[in-house]
């Protein structure tokens, strides 16, 4: 949450002057005090535990996208030329991002809605609150806009799924499909496989679990997954294969050791799961995995 810095963050005047010039803030007639306030908010957000030393502070500030920060300051202050520039330069970016998220055009509505918040139609304590005040310059303005759009689209999808009515067909169809064969052991084997999978996910390092989530839940490509994790797609592929292998070995070991199953019964577990994997609540698995992570020893990757 953006807020006024609760403590005094002293930025040297020389550094402020240099950053102000580098940002070309005078182009938008941004007052130096307004620019300094933006820098202070950004610093307070990045260092919540205390003011960093001078060298670290300078490195942080010089790495900011100060030109975008100045534009955001100007737009938040309602400078008209800055708004014209913003609309001209960033509206196509937002629309392209919206189209990438929803080629049918549904996300454009979200993109348009962002403009209202950016302008600050809502007022708090008599002051117009612009969404631009939440931009701190750590990323480019375009990337930040995409992040805002991504947040809103994901949350909209969540809320729609939560409120989506049941289809007529769903209400008519039986809740549980009849089993293909009358195998009394099938539910037990499936339950054992699920339990083993929970254990195995709990043992995975965060990065491996994240990679699995990107690949299997979000259906990202290897290249996209690698882009998010800073890995080459060949590395992603290799690591996914390694994780799969590890999960399988852990599942087998768990079934063998903890459940006292023989090889034939373990094979039966795999057969049952491939026949009918069933509704597995990954959120439950992952949250349980996260809760168990602290108590269980971290295994080497």
């Amino acid at each position, binding site marked *: 949450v953006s807020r006024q810095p609760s403590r005094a963050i002293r930025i040297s005047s020389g550094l402020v002057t240099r950053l102000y010039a580098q940002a070309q803030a005078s182009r938008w007639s941004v007052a130096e005090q307004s620019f300094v306030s933006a820098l202070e908010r950004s610093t307070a*957000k990045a260092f919540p535990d205390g003011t960093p030393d001078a060298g670290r502070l300078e490195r942080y500030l010089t*790495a900011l*996208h100060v030109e975008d920060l100045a534009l955001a300051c100007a737009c938040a202050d309602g400078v008209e030329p800055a708004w014209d520039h913003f609309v001209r330069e960033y509206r196509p970016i937002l629309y*392209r*991002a919206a*189209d*990438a*998220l929803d080629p049918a055009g549904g996300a454009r509505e979200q993109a348009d809605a962002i403009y209202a918040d950016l302008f600050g139609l809502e007022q708090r304590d008599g002051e117009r609150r612009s969404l631009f005040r*939440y931009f701190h310059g*750590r*990323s*480019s303005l375009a*990337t*930040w806009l*995409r*992040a805002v*759009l*991504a*947040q809103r689209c*994901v*949350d909209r999808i*969540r809320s729609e*799924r939560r409120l989506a009515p049941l289809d007529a067909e769903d209400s008519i169809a039986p809740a549980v499909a009849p089993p293909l064969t009358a195998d009394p052991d099938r539910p037990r084997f499936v339950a054992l496989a699920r339990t083993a*999978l929970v254990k195995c996910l709990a043992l995975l390092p*965060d990065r491996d*679990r*994240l990679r699995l*989530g*990107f690949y*299997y*839940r*979000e259906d*990202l490509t290897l290249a*996209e997954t690698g*882009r*998010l994790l800073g890995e080459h797609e*060949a590395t992603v592929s290799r690591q996914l*294969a390694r994780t*799969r*292998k590890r*999960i399988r070995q852990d599942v087998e070991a768990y079934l063998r050791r903890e459940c006292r199953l023989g*090889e*034939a019964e373990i*094979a039966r577990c*795999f*057969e049952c*799961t*491939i*026949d009918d*994997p*069933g*509704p*597995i*609540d*990954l*959120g439950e*698995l*992952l949250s349980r*995995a*996260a809760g168990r992570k602290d108590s269980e020893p971290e295994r080497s990757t």
Partner: protein
Amino acid sequence: VPEKTMNDRERDASMERLLREAMAAEVRTESPQCLDAETLAAWSDGQLTKAERSAAQSHASTCPRCQGMLAAMVRTGAALPVDASSRSPLRKWLMMLGPAVATAAAIALWFAVDRSQAPETALQRSTQTAQEPAASPSPTALAGQAANEKVAVDRYREGAQSSDAERRLADARTKTEADAPAPPTANAASQRAQAQARNLGAPNAQAAPAEEPRDRARAERETQTGQAQPPRAPFRTAADAPPVAVTAAPPPPATPPPPRPASIQQQAPPPPQQTQAQQSAGNREDRTVVTEALRDSKVAEGFAAGRGAGGGGRGIIAGAAPRPADSLDSVARRAALSFDVVSPDPLVRWRVTDGRVVQGSRDGGTTWTAQYPVADPQSRALDATRVDAGAAERKRSAGGLGVSEPGILTAGIAPSATVVWLAGRAGLILLTTNGSVWQRVKFPEAVDLVTVTATDARTATVTAADGRTFVTSNGGASWAIR
């Protein structure tokens, strides 16, 4: 007790499917620790510190909502042009440093490595060993070998999903290019050798064709195939190296070319066709590396389709050397439909050529005996029936990725030295229980079968192109969809 034990690949496929189903069960929970837009954007731009990134990853690994937002970020990022300003200065330097170091290393290696005295590689030795029986290795055979390998590479490149396999394939191709001439056709090889001979024999030639040094080395080897030449002194510096034209190749001279040396003239006429055994022996080792990569690509394809690797058929490019009149497409088609099936006894193996012809060998591939189709009226009638039955299938699937060609074998497995299962398009399954006599197994649907696994003559599992798995436990008398 299960009817059969799942093998490793089936378990991997089961595990992958389980993971995929598990991950698809989407429950997003919002929490105060969820990443805000600033952190998401900084993550996407690579601006998070190590500690921040670690903390963000730790949360995102258990938060489907944040994973969804990150996925949305990367999807929207792909639709935008690269923002150069988002890169840190250090990253910009590193991006420039990488290619610069690679270039410097390549130049240093170029001058440091004594290429003419480089040790023989296993591939080179095998190639030479295989060529010894022939009086003079013909450019046609070499061209055929190179074309087969090119087909393997192309086929792999189209279907490969595994980067590991791709790297191995690239290694194989590099190895092949370095050790054997890879002319597209025999004529091209001859012309290149001829051009090199002209250069060597005419020191004052001003219009020397521009050739890469590696091509020149290849041409030297081609020239040396007929006439031994003293080894060239290694050139370690640019001054020692022969001049390399950097301009584009000039147009061919209007005057007829000078007479070719005898060694070249000996190579010019098309050589007699090698016997199949010679070609097989000559190509076997060369194909091994490519085969391994192809097998990996099959595994990758299987996993990518979510149906496991399956299929015991080894993707060996076992097609005969291409005839000069063959187009590359036909060569590629035939090569893509050729594979070997190796039994647990390495001496006993079968090969399928052109997707139709089955041959067997009991001496490790030295000699081959045609086994299917047998030349009798009943078999011809069977083939005709199959072709007719496949016409409908061909029409049906013409709108898909390609025309489904009936009667084409695509995979095989030999669980023992006498039992082999072969699967193919349009529901074609062949089975032999004595290693030589084949019978067609009835299959309920005319679907394309892509993999087959079997444990004995009665139990087999085939996977169709649409992902369905059919299982039989009575030798193919009945099949169950699993």
